[in-house]
């Protein structure tokens, strides 16, 4: 069904004011050059993705290959040996997966700019489930294998190892801790705890990993002293730890010291949101662009321990950045009373909800509620020729159409059409009743061949994504980022 859209702000002559001053610093691009540029960008990102995938698999395969290279294939002669060998392989795979998980959360720039932090995190969780099973298999198979070979019960084997080896006791403790972390990370359980509790539990993973390290080197014949395998294993752990240290600790500290951000103003926007503007030095070198997010840590006694992931709500300038925060919980409520002059530490910028994700020359930006903020920043930062962009904003009430005036101005200057979908949602679709029946493809003749950026509440985003799939828009052209930790 094709609906003719009646738009309160139709892309008429005024909105196509080509050449109007917009505060935009780039020369206005032509459609043809953009199509080529974004296609190249998309190809490069695909290539990076392929290389990273190969590297990730290679780490896992390489760990098993170490066992094979050490003559592992000959250790399948008896039942005991075979079970033991499988246990060793399970441990090697689980440990390699553990390193991959850490690398995925280390906020390594190339991973962030290829997968996006949210995809990296969900991959981290997926791998985590397999990793926990691998660790359990490692423990159980080795106990069984030793028991079969020694013709003693698994309990005797366990007791023997427990009595003989401190490193074994540490490893058992590590497995128990990781089990706790795994259970607490599962979504169903996670929702019952506040973020801080979940984060504290997660920090214990580091303790668990450290506790598991000694037995890898002391009890394993594979990684015995003087062997090449030991060097590989040490290198794997050093690279992982180095990435965590460099990108999660050192780089944010350098950023914070370099840019010296302070809050300059806290201004209410809409019924329950505030815009926080910060000023700092050399923000051009921070490399943030509209649509990206940073982890913000406001240095007041009550807020210093809570980093908050917030998207920019305007493209940053060389000296200022702006975020917009809606009162969603105890932590964000306190942000509404921030005083100008408060110092700010940042980690980032992160995320692919930006020009870097573009694959096509046309773009459809769809935002709802406070999700309009990153859409607004992206609108300012991404390139398109006049007439090749459509912005769709959705809110239950006109007050919740955050930044509608700024978006209207930007659309007019850049030559983008704007649709405002205000009022209750039409059934379980993502549009308002005033647009009942409208599909994504009704907002432009080129939507199937456009990039679609979606930001808003999760259930609403699911509805938009379902519509995109139903409309036949390839998933690689649909861009969404979610902030459910």
């Amino acid at each position, binding site marked *: 069904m094709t609906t003719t859209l009646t738009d309160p702000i139709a892309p008429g002559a005024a909105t196509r004011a080509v050449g109007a001053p917009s505060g935009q610093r780039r020369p206005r691009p032509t459609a043809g050059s953009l199509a080529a540029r974004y296609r190249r960008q998309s190809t490069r990102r*695909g290539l990076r*993705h*392929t290389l990273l*995938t*190969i590297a*990730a*698999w*290679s780490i*896992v*395969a*390489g760990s*098993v*290959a*170490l*066992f*094979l*290279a*050490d*003559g*592992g*294939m*000959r*250790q399948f002669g008896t039942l*005991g*040996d075979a*079970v*033991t*060998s499988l*246990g*060793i392989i399970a441990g090697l795979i689980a440990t390699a997966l553990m390193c991959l998980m850490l690398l995925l959360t280390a906020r390594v720039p190339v991973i962030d700019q290829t997968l996006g932090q949210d995809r990296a995190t969900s991959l981290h969780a997926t791998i985590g489930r397999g990793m926990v099973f691998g660790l359990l298999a490692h423990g159980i198979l*080795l106990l069984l*294998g*030793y*028991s*079969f*070979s*020694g*013709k*003693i019960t698994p309990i*005797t*084997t366990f007791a*023997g*190892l427990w*009595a*003989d*080896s*401190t*490193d074994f006791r540490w490893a058992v403790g590590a497995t128990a801790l990781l089990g706790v972390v795994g259970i607490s990370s599962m979504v169903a359980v996670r929702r019952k705890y506040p973020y801080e509790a979940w984060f504290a539990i997660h920090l214990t993973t580091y303790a668990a990993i450290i506790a598991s390290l*000694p037995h890898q*080197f*002391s*009890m*394993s*014949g*594979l*990684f*015995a*002293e003087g062997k090449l395998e030991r060097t590989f294993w040490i290198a794997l752990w050093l690279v992982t730890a180095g990435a965590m240290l460099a990108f999660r600790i050192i780089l944010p500290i350098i950023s914070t010291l370099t840019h010296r951000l302070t809050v300059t103003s806290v201004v209410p926007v809409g019924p329950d949101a505030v815009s926080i503007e910060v000023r700092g030095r050399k923000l051009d070198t921070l490399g943030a662009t509209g649509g990206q997010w940073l982890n913000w840590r406001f240095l007041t006694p009550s807020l210093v321990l809570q980093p908050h992931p917030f998207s920019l709500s305007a493209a940053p300038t060389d000296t200022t950045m702006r975020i917009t925060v809606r009162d969603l919980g105890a932590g964000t409520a306190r942000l509404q009373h921030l005083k100008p002059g408060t110092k700010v530490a940042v980690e980032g910028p992160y995320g692919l909800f930006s020009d870097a994700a573009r694959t096509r020359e046309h773009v459809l930006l769809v935002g709802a509620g406070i999700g309009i903020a990153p859409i607004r920043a992206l609108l300012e930062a991404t390139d398109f020729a006049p007439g090749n962009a459509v912005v769709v904003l959705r809110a239950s009430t006109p007050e919740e159409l955050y930044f509608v005036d700024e978006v209207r101005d930007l659309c007019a200057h850049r030559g983008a059409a704007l649709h405002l979908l205000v009022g209750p949602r039409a059934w379980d679709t993502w549009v308002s009743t005033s647009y009942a029946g409208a599909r994504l493809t009704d907002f432009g003749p080129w939507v199937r061949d456009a990039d679609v950026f979606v930001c808003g509440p999760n259930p609403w985003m699911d509805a938009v994504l379902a519509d995109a799939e139903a409309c036949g828009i390839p998933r*690689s052209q649909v861009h969404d980022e979610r902030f459910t930790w």
Partner: protein
Amino acid sequence: MSTKRNSAAALASIGILATGWSIGTAHGQTLTKTASGATGSGTTTAPGSSAGTKAGANSGTGAGSSSGTAAGSSSGAAAGTTTAGSATYVGTRQSDRWGSLQVTVTVTNGKITNVTYTSTAGDGKSRSIEARATPTLKSEVVAANSAQVSSVSGATYTSAKYLTSLQSALDQIR
């Protein structure tokens, strides 16, 4: 695209595994030869261990630790810890091609009361042999109050490493 990507990665992984396997097979043949040549030669002492024995012989720390836990795996050195009435002595680390083993002995009033060990043997067979043989060795040693006990059948190498390390620990007692 994601299928292609994963196929490429799977292919690379298979290549890596095949490389590992072929190295393992080639390496295995040399290992077997070495092993047959080395039969009967018994244990070899870890490099630097004799120096370590002398250096560590009288280093009582008095930390009150009487747990028979061996020090880190990187050291081939022997060390002793003395507390009132009871002392622990760490033997030299004894290595062979299955890994190294190091014994810690607790002596109370001139009697061996406990023996513990750490081992770097990683393959299942060695671990299981150790798990089977060491309780026997320990009870024999405690009963005989010396390292002069017979080795456990089917665990010749383990027994040799265990008893040699034990003797070096007992040698520290003056």
